[in-house]
């Protein structure tokens, strides 16, 4: 039984924004896989709902004229997994989407909700960090675009004001074109689990060197994070096993995993090191590179 005080179904983003404005206590619900858990726990702040589940204008994956890939925030993970555009251009996002929950969750949970929930373990978040994704937010005063790294303000906190709706996630051409990535999720189970550590690598190679290199982690800090110093170190370097080893060591100096009853800091660091290697090697394989 859920303690739902009001439930308003929005017919459009515009209507959702005005419904939110009408009720300062209202929260958005899309797939509901996070909101309903909070309601089940008896959290009163989710008892007024504005429902954007199934809004057509939020459910799309397209490639713009400038080669920017735009994913509607209401796109569910199974649609990401089945999308030709995503499979062709950003297979790393398919890795991530496939690792979420189980089939029932992936059929209803949205990529927008995964981001707006603001947790460090969100499987789509670290790939989007490595892709320099930009999120589009619509509010009563118009729209704004926010780089994903700025969108995360803290644990469970994102840059959404009351009345804002995250509408789309954009990945511009320079971030995916000729780039190859991999998302590696480490969890205690193969399904129905949250990441102990998630690692996303997005890279470009040229003439046997790393032309661009990005590495992002989930659960390695309070919010998803990149490792800029390790990335700087790696950029321009010739591909070698040594380099992979160096990257895997460099990231440990930037991440800040903590000890919880779920896993110790030491254990997480061990996994971070290992995933940095594995995700990088897999991304290089996708780039058609073989380590000398």
């Amino acid at each position, binding site marked *: 039984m859920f303690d739902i005080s009001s439930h308003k179904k929005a017919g459009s983003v515009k209507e959702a924004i005005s419904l939110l404005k009408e009720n300062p206590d209202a929260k958005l619900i899309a797939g509901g896989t996070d909101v309903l858990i909070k309601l089940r726990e008896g959290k009163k702040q989710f008892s007024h709902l504005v429902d954007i589940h199934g809004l057509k204008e939020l459910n799309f994956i397209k490639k713009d004229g400038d080669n920017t890939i735009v994913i509607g925030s209401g796109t569910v993970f199974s649609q990401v997994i089945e999308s030709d555009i995503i499979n062709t251009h950003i297979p790393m996002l398919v890795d991530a989407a496939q690792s979420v929950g189980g089939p029932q969750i992936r059929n209803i949970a949205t990529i927008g909700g995964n981001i707006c929930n603001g947790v460090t373990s969100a499987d789509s978040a670290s790939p989007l960090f490595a892709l320099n994704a930009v999120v589009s937010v619509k509010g009563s005063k118009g729209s704004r675009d926010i780089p994903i790294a700025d969108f995360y303000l803290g644990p469970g906190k994102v840059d959404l004001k009351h009345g804002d709706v995250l509408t789309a996630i954009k990945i511009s051409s320079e971030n995916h074109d000729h780039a190859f990535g991999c998302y590696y999720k480490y969890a205690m*189970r193969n399904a*129905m689990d949250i990441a102990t550590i998630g690692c996303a690598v997005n890279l470009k190679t040229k003439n046997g060197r790393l032309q661009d290199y990005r590495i992002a982690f989930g659960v390695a800090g309070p919010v998803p994070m990149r490792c800029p110093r390790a990335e700087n170190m790696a950029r321009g370097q010739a591909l070698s096993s040594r380099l992979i080893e160096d990257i895997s060591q460099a990231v440990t100096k930037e991440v800040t995993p903590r000890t919880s009853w779920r896993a110790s800091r030491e254990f997480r660091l*061990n*996994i971070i*090191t290992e995933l940095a290697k594995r995700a990088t090697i897999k991304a290089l394989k996708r780039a058609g590179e073989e380590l000398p």
Partner: protein
Amino acid sequence: MAVGKSVNRVDAMAKVTGRAKYTEDFYHPDMLVAKYFRSSIAHGRVTAINTKKAENLDGVHAVFTYKDVPENKFPTAGHPLALTEDHKDAADRLLLTRDVRFMGDEIAIVVAQNELVANEALKLIEVSYDEYQPLILPEDILEENARQIHEGSSNIVGEHTYTFGNDVDQAFEKADHVVEGSFRTAMVQHCHIENHISHAYMDDLDKIVIVSSTQIPHIARRIVGEVLNIPLSRIRVIKPFVGGGFGNKQDVILEPMVAFLTLKLNGRAVQINLSREECIIGTRTRHPFYIDVKTGVMNDGTIVARHMDAISITGAYASHGHSVAAAGGSKQSSLYPRAATSFHARTLYANTPVAGAMRAYGSPQIIYALECATEDAARKIGMDSVEFRLKNVARQGDINLLSGKEILSCGLADCLIKGRDFIGWGEKKKEYEKFKTGPVRKGLGLACLSYASGTYPVCVEIAGARIALNQDGTVHVMVGATEIGQGSDTVVAQMVAQTLSFPYENVLVVQAQDTDVTPFDTGAYASRQAYVVSNAVFRAATDLREKILDHAAVMTDIDVAGLDIVDGNIVDTRKSAQVMDMKTLAIDSFYHKERGCQLTAEASFKATTNAPVFGCTFVDITVNIPLCKIKINRMISVHDSGVIINPVQSGGQIHGGAFMGIGAALSEELLIDPKTGYIYNNNLLDYKFPTFTDVPPIHHDFVETFEPTSAYGNKALGEPPVISPPPAIRNAVLDATGLCINSLPLSPHTLFTAFKDHGLIDEKGGDNV
């Protein structure tokens, strides 16, 4: 011949179409719901409680606290009534308690019009405590000045020793080698799909009807009567379809409370429907064990001596208490009957969730330690692990020295050979020699098991069956053996069809149980039902068969010796001709004005035998050192459970048991803060029950023996499959890595610590040499 065939389950259609009705599906328009107010501390005493605000909330019908409940303490274990004092369960529980003994203990209960109101009301109850230091670890519980968790009672709930065979000390002295090890098992949970749920109402002025998801309807009736001090005949327990129990419903958990509430509320229906979180904390768990094992072995591979010392943690209330350690310990004498053996076990109270019955009842803990120790002994003398088992395990004709009974059927050696062949033991062993260093290592492991087919001679073993011929020539069967999803109704139908020579489809088992009408049986536990009920069913069916043939003889004037039933028809055996179909006979028996009667038969039977069962698991694994993960490549369990009544259903038991065993081996553990008693993971996200993707394809096979004490040659199978996978996996990890990791589960955390301690993982995530 219905026995030995993989007929469809009698309830298959009802279940796959969603028509089967479970306890929650029985709806009363005015039914109220009740929710427990649970303690937020693990150890202490309530100094004050104020329920006024909760009582005044709209929609709340009543709030009861420890002040309102009967003062007689009662036991909750679902055991038959023991006529002697030494076998009685500890009576240590009240319906609600002032003394808090674990985090989640039940202090008060709110009855409201729905769950939301009840949850709101719970937040309005104010309570203050005198807090005591929680006692979680054995050393703290056993400390001389430790507080008594139950005032006036020792923290040691039970203790016993036994020895069998030659003088154990002398045997150790003579042994060429003595191998020692210490082992730990985790607190795990049953995780049956249907959580605990019961409701009760009064359908007249003095009779309480309880509808409950239980394994033990008749025992639940008795205990409710004891708690409320009302005659048993005024209580009626109905068991609809049940969504699994695994022992967690072999305990009265909700039934006395719903009965109490409906009495208090003038007979109005009241339901308690536990959430998963409550079910994990507030029902029962598997006893965690601490076990030391010493094995004396000769250079030729003979195990000559064994000593085991076990501590079992039963948690805040005894529930099944020391019975679990005693039952688990007793399986040594059927698995390795020729080794001089001594055993000592203690069961302790602790400020942790209550442990009770769980699939295989102590054996997963004891046999885990035993089979790890056996592996260590084999390695000590450099003998092949399979050969070592073959040399030492039980054979038909061995005497089980604890029971003094001969082992009449035993196919364990053949199980070992089947398992060895399937896994490709010799070749794989060779192939894996080159995978003993580096980041990816491979190994093989095995473990044996022994189990029993009931509880005799510790408890009474009684089963009842009633069969009635219907007017259309089918029969209805009523048994007290309790179907909880394991398939016992199907097996009963097969047995009846076999003995009556009826088509399986013409044998109809009455599904729901109702203690007002169902023959007496103590219920679903101890893997007892198919074994114990077999003799009741056989007697009733044989009796009915004779009555049918007698009536046929009266109808036809043919000598009864020349009549038989073949495929449900009456046949003249001398002419090899069908005389009439069963419907014709039935109609005559019911409606002929002068002859016949309704043809029925009934039998109640007590088993005074207990057949041991055997089995083994072989496993082939890959250990990824840097990821701290174990991958099971292949696994097979081979069982001797006598005659297999239904091969597909039996395979299902093995697969389910192996699944549960893999969970206990690799990932499942209820995490309790050793200082505060706080339970971290009482949900299925954080309690790592495996998913389908975590479990490899499991293979199974049988070695079919014939057990002469069963009417159909069958022995136990329900629980045993859970026993052998964890030690087999631990032994495979030893084979792969050279490390004895003696603590379950072998989760990434456990492996990480072990690998780091032994230098397999270095600070820099290096080469893993």
